[in-house]
């Protein structure tokens, strides 16, 4: 016997609760004071925190992906259940029989999967997968930002500020140009 939880036991624990327990456990190691000399350690502790979060996000991704796969598998199995029962034999002898069977199979799968994809629950699941994927990216960015800082390079956030301001400037120039065009055309009309 091991003290490890079996897959079934682990699966039965609500995921959020499991994550909270995990975070509670690690909190005591990462909860370093943020003032006095400790403030100088912030970058290092941030890396630790981000790495820890990366683990949590990875497990979330795994959870949602497993959920996604199980929904797909379940729908597939349910679609096959909808096909005529076993006692009606598909006796495929000609190419036409094969085409007919294929068309029936594809039609049944299509209906079942379209119902799944149109359901609100599945839409939310896809959103969860995309959100965790973006969380994962954000954490990677945070970790790499710390190293860019020590290399005296601008990080993505610094560049984003410049990009945003540049786009705003472009819009201002556009609006100015349009105002000038209107004034010039009105001047021309008056001159005529």
């Amino acid at each position, binding site marked *: 016997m091991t003290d490890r939880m079996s897959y079934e036991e682990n699966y039965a624990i609500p995921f959020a609760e499991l994550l909270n327990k995990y975070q509670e456990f690690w909190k005591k190691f990462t909860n370093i004071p943020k003032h006095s000399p400790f403030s100088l350690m912030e970058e290092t502790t941030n890396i630790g925190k981000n790495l820890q979060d990366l683990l949590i996000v990875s497990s979330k991704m795994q959870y949602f992906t497993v959920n996604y796969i199980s929904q797909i598998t379940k729908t597939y199995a349910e679609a*096959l259940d909808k096909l*005529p029962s*076993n006692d009606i*034999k598909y006796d495929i002898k000609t190419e036409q029989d094969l085409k007919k069977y294929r068309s029936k199979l*594809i039609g049944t799968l299509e209906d079942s999967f379209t119902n799944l994809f149109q359901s609100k629950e599945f*839409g939310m699941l896809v959103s969860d997968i995309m959100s965790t994927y*973006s969380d994962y990216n954000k954490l990677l*960015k945070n970790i790499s930002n710390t190293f860019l800082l020590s290399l005296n390079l601008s990080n993505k956030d610094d560049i984003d500020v410049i990009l945003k301001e540049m786009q705003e400037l*472009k*819009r201002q120039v556009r609006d100015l140009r349009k105002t000038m065009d209107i004034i010039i055309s009105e001047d021309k009309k008056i001159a005529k």
Partner: protein
Amino acid sequence: MKIKKLLNNTTTNSGEQVKQPSISIVSDRYNEELAEKIEKFTKLYQNPRDIDVGKTAHEIVKETNLYRLLHYKPIFRKPLKTPLLVVYALINKSYILDLQEDKSWIKNLISQGFDVYLIDWKPPTSNDKYVNFDDYVNDFIDDCVDIIRNKNSIEKITLHGYCMGATMSAMYTTFYQHKIRNLVTLAPVIDTSKDTTVIGNFGRNMAADKIMDSLGNMPPQLLNTCFSALKPFKQGMNKYYALLEHIDDTKFVENFLRVEKWLYDIPPITGEVFKQWINDIYKNNLLIKNELKLGNKKVDLSKIHVPLLNIVAEEDHLVSPLCSAALNNLVSSVDNRLMKFPTGHVGLIASSYSQLNVLPRIGKWLFSRSA
């Protein structure tokens, strides 16, 4: 044999054995032919060749980092007086409108005597993440409209948009009516509360702000995840069976490869546009409430008075027909027409059906309004 064994061992989630056809399949000759076709199919995918698209003769009138304005060479010495600007969507590439000679939307319009321009959107880079609908509508489209007006010394042109491009065309017309003679929209996204598609469902549930704040632009891979959920079997899988069956038909294979190239030629969408598209249009349905803001101006569809032709595909699985048809009820145009065709979203613009049924009717409607 392995496949047969595997199939016979598959069970459903209720533990019952999955029903399988009695695979005494067909004949040895059929199996041999099938094996041959599979080999050719594999070779085709392993040795991709260059696929020609967008071959109708044109010149580039203007090019920036985010778009090219193309002018197609007219067939007639004197094309119709009112030029037509096609505004394509920001999803996939505009060459679907000029995919091949016998199914070219553009070529058909030229052959009907129209003077055709097209905005060919270029893929945004991560530096363009803050470019939003305000820029696309008030800057890029307006720039193109002005270039065409100046080039032809005319006051007004016809604006003709497809899908997201049709939505942008409607937005544009609300602000710049004095530059637009006719508005022709194909499958526009308007009233998303009436959209029952898979894309609509994903859009309404998507945390666009969070995703874009992390990723910058909407990457092609994530867009493809959404698109692949559209008719995954009838279109996603069945098409490969069809290719296998017609692998010896050169014309079929060429057509297939062109569409296949287009389907996976997905540029990213700028983060700000994607956020507005999902939050303002899909989640909050601001367009029909006349509350959508571009810059500091509100898009008020009721301000549209120009002649409107709205074309809807009855079997559209990307934009529900009711979602598109809502436009006709929101504008104030007296000359206001809705046309419905029994085809799909892409079939509406790039099929033999559209060449024979859709384009002649658009041409007829536009002809008297373009002279």
